[in-house]
């Protein structure tokens, strides 16, 4: 059976090779984030270089995720390249649904990809998706408000400091909230934040035997601390705030601090931001337990196994995630706008080092370790998620319970008890 499959794939590869000389049209599913939309604008450069044309299917993150997951599991073959993240890549790679990217050209320099990124996008040492951009999370804060509060942000703050600073910066009269954080339901929204945060409190999703751990004190501490701090110093209605809502608040000068994706740094310092010149950066806080509360994520390009246009798709990936592409964007739109977090060489570039958030982004990425995300050992890979197929479903339910607790509709203890029940039930159903 295996032999047939391999023979078949070989045949495909040969077919693809001989077809490479012809111009093809590849279909790419991607997310509607700023960097991807910018990439679409440069498609002509790719077409000029290779002759291939591109059909874009741009969708909002959640819709995209459902769309590509349905297609890959049902083997629909609708896309030649899919934009996926660190959560999907190892699971799909394990199932043999993705084309291994271990034969990229020499000038592409795959070794230049940040080890944290290639590690999270591989399964058993084989790269299955090439990072378009990578991110961790960090503290973005208002230097002016910090000064007014008579405090100084350390490079690596603790949660205690953050809470204290948040309280001091808060001024309800001027709608200045000391801190803005994600409380919105959804595993990629509030779920990601609280999970990354829980790591620094010594909590974990599952123990070594895949038993859910929401009944532990560490989780109670995490959620209580979060809710306590946000009730004191967060914006009203933070239980519905996700990345976008917080970004908008910060840009309008309504947040003293914001702990979120490192890619947000370029948004809070660009022309849309009313506070651009006051923004400072620091590592995500810790609790002295040896783990910080920053996550690790990459939006990466992968080729579904079975596509007829593998060669052209690979050419596209080599173009879009190359050093040349970064330079193309830098030349046209400045270094602050290049896709960050994917390549070592970018951070060695003296031009890029002048970008104010470059160093902190790199330090944050380097301090996250998806293979050992928690204080206590865990059986899963992933910082703000666990790379198992059941996670997204469980985490989506769990984060809804948390959001209801943030909104005051139930206590933190009730939310955690429900989370434990949901997770236990789902893990049983999956046969752990």
């Amino acid at each position, binding site marked *: 059976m295996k032999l047939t499959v391999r023979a078949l794939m070989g045949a495909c590869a040969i077919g693809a090779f001989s077809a490479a000389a012809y111009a093809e049209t590849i279909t790419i599913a991607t997310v509607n984030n700023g960097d991807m939309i910018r990439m679409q604008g440069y498609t002509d450069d790719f077409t000029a270089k290779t002759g291939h044309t591109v059909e874009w299917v741009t969708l909002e993150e959640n819709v995209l995720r459902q769309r590509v997951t349905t297609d890959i*599991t049902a083997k629909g073959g609708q896309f030649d390249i899919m934009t996926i993240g660190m959560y999907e890549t190892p699971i799909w790679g394990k199932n043999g649904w993705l084309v291994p990217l271990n034969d990229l050209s020499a000038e592409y320099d795959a070794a230049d990809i940040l080890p944290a990124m290639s590690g999270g996008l591989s399964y058993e040492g084989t790269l299955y998706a090439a990072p378009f951009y990578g991110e961790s999370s960090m503290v973005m804060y208002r230097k002016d408000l910090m000064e007014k509060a008579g405090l100084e942000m350390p490079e690596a703050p603790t949660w205690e400091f953050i809470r204290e600073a948040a309280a001091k910066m808060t001024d309800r009269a001027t709608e200045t909230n000391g801190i803005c954080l994600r409380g919105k339901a959804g595993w990629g929204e509030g779920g990601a934040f609280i999970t990354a945060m829980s790591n620094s409190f010594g909590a974990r999703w599952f123990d070594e035997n895949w038993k859910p751990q929401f009944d532990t004190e560490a989780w109670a501490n995490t959620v209580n601390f979060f809710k306590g701090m946000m009730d004191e110093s967060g914006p009203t209605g933070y239980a519905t705030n996700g990345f976008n809502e917080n970004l908008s*608040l910060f840009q309008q000068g309504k947040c003293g601090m914001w702990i979120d994706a490192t890619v947000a740094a370029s948004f809070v310092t660009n022309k849309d931001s009313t506070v651009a010149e006051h923004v400072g950066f620091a590592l995500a806080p810790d609790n002295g337990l040896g783990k910080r509360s920053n996550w690790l994520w990459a939006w990466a390009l992968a080729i579904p196994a079975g596509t007829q246009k593998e060669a052209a798709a690979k050419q596209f990936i080599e173009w879009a995630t190359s050093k040349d592409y970064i330079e193309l964007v830098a030349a046209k739109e400045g270094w602050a706008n290049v896709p960050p977090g994917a390549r070592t060489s970018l951070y060695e570039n003296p031009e890029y080092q002048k970008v104010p958030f470059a160093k902190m982004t790199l330090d944050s990425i380097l301090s996250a370790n998806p293979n050992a995300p928690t204080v206590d050992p865990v059986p899963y890979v992933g910082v703000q998620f666990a790379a198992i*197929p*059941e996670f997204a*479903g469980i985490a989506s339910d769990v984060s809804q319970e948390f*959001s*209801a607790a943030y909104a005051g509709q139930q206590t933190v203890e009730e939310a955690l008890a429900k989370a434990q*029940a949901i997770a236990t*039930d789902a893990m049983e*159903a999956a046969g752990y």
Partner: protein
Amino acid sequence: MATKASRTAARIMMAPAVILLLGWMLVPLIMTLWFSFRNYLPLRGGDLGFAGFDNYVRFVTSSAFWPAVMATMIIVVGTLVITVVLGVLLALLLDQPMWGQGIVRILVIAPFFVMPTVSGLVWKNMFLDSVNGLFAHIARFIGATPVEWMIEAPFFSIILIVSWQWLPFATLILLTAIQSLDSEQLEAAEIDGAPKIKRFWYIIVPHLGRAITVVILIQTIFLLSIFAEIYVTTAGAFGSKTLTYLIFQRVLESQNVGLGSAGGVYAIILANIVAIFLMRIVGKNLDS
């Protein structure tokens, strides 16, 4: 009256529609039933074998099940009440002589043309958002604290959005019915000196019975499966998770097709209970 030949012809003419709909009903239904007894997990490699009634038991014993049934009912009933009551009033208003009737009508029916996703997004972001939404701006303007609509009143928000979309439909049907009302009958009542309320209650409302039945029937079918409005607003948080949304979560987020299919079977059963219920209560109206 109908000859045998015409009856045969009638059958032949009905055949394409009936066969197509039978296929459209049976194929997915049978596949749903089949999957609901399988342990079908696409991300774990697909069909992992027979699951017995596990999926059914698991779906119904999940803590989310009954709240989801309740949420579905609240949204359906809430929307029905609002659209029928406001629809009757609006239809009466639009039936009155006025200047620019045509334009007013198009203004009133316009929401029906808006895609559910668009209306959900527009309402959530531009009206109900507690920071930048118009309602928050108004609240601030009059010195009140902006309401967190999605948290404090998720059902109200969803019902508001859905009602806004379906009010035109109800109004249109009720308006056509009112227009067919015999004006002589009304005039006679007016001459008899019957007060307005009485005229409304004893002449107009009974006349509208049939139209209201139709509105309820058609809207229920559509409302039982509303999805986009919830997806883009609360995403099922704060207790607003309907049965359709729960099935969506099981199928697409948890990637458990077996479990989702079992949920689908429950949803069909629920829909049919509602349908039978409707038929019993209002079906007579349709026959007359």
